[in-house]
C-alpha cells in the first residue's frame, strides 16, 4: 500500500495558506470548532521560508493530503543546552487514512531530526499512535493549582500589572530574565509573536516603589494557566496568586529543576499533580553529550557504563557514561524511560539490577513550558 504513496516533501512559504486550510479541515473534523493554527501558534506559521520548511507534507494529485511539523528549539535546563524538536500539526486527510502516509511522514521527520543533530523530540499526542515510533511518556514536572481563596492570601509587597500580549512590549531586560528558570532559547522578535498565542496576557510584578520588574509571566486566561514565567521566586508566586484572584483560580507548571519555585508553590498550592510528556531519544550520543554537566555532577567515582540504543532496521547507536563500561542495550522507548524516569534506572526491563549507580544519575530533567508546546 505504501508503494503508491507520494514521497514527503518540504513545504515552502507559498504552501502556507493551503497547509493552514488543510490542517484546519482535518482538525475540525475531529473537533468541530477547532481554532485555526495561525491563531493557536502564530509564531509557527509566520510568513517565511524557514517556518514553512519545518513542515513535511505528502501531496496527491498536487494537493496536500498529510502533514507533520517539527519545530527545533534549545532547552536550557540544569546547566545544559538540549537540542529538542517538538512534533506537531500531524494530520492526514480522511481519504488517506490507513494507507501508511503518517508512518512515512513520521519516519522521514525522525530521519530529518537526526540529520539536524537533535538530541530528543517531544510531542503532546496519544501514546498508542506515537509509541511505535519510539516516543514514550515521562514525568516532566508538577502542576500546581492555586485557588482564588489562596490567591487572596498574597501580601502587598509587589504591584502586579496586566496587559494583553498583543499590546505588550517585552524589553531586552525582561527577556534576559528568562534565564532565571528553565527556558527555551528564542529571539526577542519571535518571542514577541509567540506570547500572543491564545490571547495571552502579560503579568508583571514590580516593587511598590520601583518600576523595575522583579518577575513576569505569560498567562492564558482561557485555560486559567500560567504558560511561562521568569524572575524572582517571590515575584512569580505573587503573580500566580494575583492571576488566581483575577481568573478565579489558576494553574502553573514547574520543572523539578526550578527547586526554589517548586518548594514555594508546593507549600501554598491547593492542589498538586504530576505532568507528563511524550519524548523520543533521537540520538543517544547527542543526549548524553548535551546532558554532560548534569550527568558528571552525579557520576559516582570510577563508574562507567555504555548505553546502546537499538534502532529500527537493525542498527544501533552507543554513548558512554563516564568512560564507558558494561553495556546496557535498550530500544528507544526503554531508553527514554531509563534516561528520563520517573522509574528508577534499575526498574527498567533490560537494565541489570547490579547497575545501581545509574539510580544516582538518572532521571535527567526535561520539560517544555506550555507556551512552547506545539
Amino acid at each position, binding site marked *: 500500500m505504501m508503494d503508491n504513496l507520494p514521497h514527503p516533501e518540504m513545504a515552502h512559504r507559498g504552501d502556507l495558506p493551503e497547509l493552514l486550510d488543510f490542517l484546519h479541515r482535518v482538525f475540525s473534523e475531529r473537533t468541530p470548532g477547532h481554532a485555526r493554527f495561525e491563531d493557536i501558534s502564530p509564531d509557527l506559521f509566520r510568513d517565511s521560508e524557514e517556518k514553512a520548511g519545518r513542515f513535511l507534507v505528502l501531496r496527491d494529485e498536487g494537493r496536500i493530503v498529510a502533514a507533520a511539523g517539527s519545530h527545533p528549539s534549545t532547552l536550557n535546563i540544569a546547566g545544559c543546552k538540549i537540542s529538542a524538536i517538538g512534533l506537531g500539526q500531524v494530520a492526514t486527510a480522511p481519504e488517506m487514512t490507513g494507507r501508511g502516509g503518517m508512518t512515512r511522514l513520521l519516519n522521514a521527520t525522525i530521519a530529518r531530526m537526526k540529520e539536524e543533530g537533535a538530541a530528543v523530540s517531544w510531542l503532546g499526542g*496519544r*501514546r*498508542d*499512535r506515537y509509541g511505535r515510533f519510539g516516543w514514550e*511518556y515521562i*514525568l516532566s514536572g508538577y502542576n500546581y493549582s492555586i*485557588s482564588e481563596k*489562596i490567591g487572596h492570601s498574597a501580601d502587598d509587597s509587589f504591584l502586579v500589572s496586566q496587559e494583553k500580549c498583543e499590546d505588550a512590549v517585552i524589553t531586552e531586560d525582561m527577556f534576559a530574565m528568562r534565564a532565571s528558570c528553565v527556558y527555551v532559547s528564542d529571539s526577542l522578535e519571535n518571542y514577541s509573536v509567540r506570547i500572543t498565542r491564545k490571547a495571552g496576557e502579560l503579568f508583571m510584578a514590580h516593587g511598590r516603589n520601583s518600576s523595575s520588574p522583579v518577575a513576569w509571566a505569560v498567562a492564558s486566561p482561557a485555560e486559567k494557566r500560567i504558560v511561562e514565567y521568569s524572575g524572582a521566586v517571590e515575584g512569580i508566586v505573587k503573580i500566580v496568586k494575583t492571576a488566581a484572584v483575577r481568573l478565579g483560580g489558576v494553574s502553573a507548571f514547574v520543572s*523539578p529543576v526550578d*527547586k526554589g519555585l517548586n*518548594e514555594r508553590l*508546593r*507549600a*501554598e*498550592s*491547593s*492542589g*498538586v*499533580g*504530576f505532568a*507528563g510528556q511524550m519524548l523520543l531519544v533521537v540520538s543517544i550520543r547527542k543526549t548524553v553529550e548535551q546532558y554532560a554537566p548534569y550527568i558528571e555532577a*552525579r557520576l*559516582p567515582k570510577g563508574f562507567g557504563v555504555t548505553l546502546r540504543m537499538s534502532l529500527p532496521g537493525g542498527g544501533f547507536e552507543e554513548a558512554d557514561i563516564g568512560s564507558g563500561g558494561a553495556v546496557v542495550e535498550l530500544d528507544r522507548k526503554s531508553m527514554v524511560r531509563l534516561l528520563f*524516569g*520517573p*522509574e*528508577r534506572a*534499575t*526498574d527498567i*526491563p533490560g537494565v541489570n539490577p547490579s547497575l*545501581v549507580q545509574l*539510580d*544516582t544519575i538518572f*532521571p535527567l530533567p526535561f520539560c517544555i513550558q506550555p507556551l512552547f508546546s506545539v
Partner: protein
Amino acid sequence: MKEIHKSLPEKATLADMPELLDFLKGVFSANNPTHPRFEWLYPDMFLDEGKAGRHLVLRRGGKIVSSVGTYPLTLNTAGCKVTIAGVGQVATSQEMAGRGCMSQLLEASIARMEEEGVALSWLSGRHDRYGRFGWEFVFRGYNHSFIEKIGRTADDSFHVTQEKCTDAVMTDELFAMRGSNSYISDTMANYSVVMQRSEAELWVARPRGSSEPVAWTIVFPGAKKLAEYCGTVDGILHLVKVAAVRFGGASVFASPADKDLNERLRAESSGMTFGGHMLLVVSIKKTLEQYTPYINSRLPAGFGATLRMRLPGGRCEEASIGGGGPVVELDRKLMARLLFGPERATQVPGVGRDLASLDTVLPLPCSLPDLYHV
C-alpha cells in the same frame, strides 16, 4: 472572631450511624447537591460497632457537628505488609466552620493512628487543607487508559462473565487469587460487602473451554474503571479491553510494584498518566520496619543512614536504614517525599548529596487499589 469549639472528640457507636450518615449527607450535599449517601458509596464502613468506632465526632448541644473517619488497612506490596490508615468522611457543619473542629479531630485522629501502631496514612483531599497536618502529595503509580478501538484488539482466548456484585458470590478460589498483585488484606465476609461499592460489577475471565478463572476484576461502571483486579497478566489485560469496548473506553490503575502488569498495560494502552495521593508518615520506625524486605533487597553493601522525623510539639522519632549512619532530619511532609517520591532522595530539601545511595533504596512503592478508597 469565632469561638473555638471546646468539646472532646468521641468515638461514634453503632447507634450513632443513622445520625452520622445524615450529617455526612447534609455536609457533602451543600457543595454537591447530587452527592450520594455514604452508605451507598461505602456500604462496608458503617456496618457494626467496630466500624462505627472508626469515626471520631464532635458534638454540640448533643448533635454531631464534625466528623473524621480513619480506616486501618494492611497493604501487601513488594513482599511487605504495610499498615496504612485511610482518612475520609471529613466533615464539619457549616455553622461550625472556622472554629477549629477539623484541626481538633485530625490531630486526635493522628494521635489515634500513632497509638494503634499504624505506619502510614493516606487520603485524597486537598493539599492546602491537609498539608499542614503532615500529609504530602507523593507518587502512587500509573493510570492506564484504553480507548474502545484498542479494546477491540482483544482476541477470543478468554470468555468473560459479568454480574452485579450484589448478586455475585466471591468463592474461596477467587479470593485466594488476590495475592497475584498488590492487595489489601481483608476477610471474605467484609470483602463481599466492600465489592458492592458504587454499584460495582464482578467480571471473571476464563480460558475458552475451561471453567477455571484466570483473572477477575471489580469494575465501577459509572467511573469506567477497574477498581481492583487479580490473576494472570493476560487475563487482566483481556478484562481491561472488554471493559473498554463495553464502556466506550476504560482505565485501570497499576502500582509500580506490579511490574509485569505495568509493562503489558504500558505497551497496549492509548494513554498513561502518573497518579499521586496524599500520604502521612505516622511512624518512621514502623514504616521502615514494615518495608524492610524491599529496602534490604536494594541496600548497597555497607550503606546506612538514620532517618529522624520531626513531630509537632518538639518530639522526634528515629529509625535506621541498614545499620544506621548519617542523620537525615526532616519534618513529616519532607519525610513523605523522601520515602515515596517521585523525587530522587537527594533532591528533597535537607538531604545531602553525599547520601546518593538513598537513591538506590527509595522511593518505596505505596498504592492502594481504587476499590479501597475512602
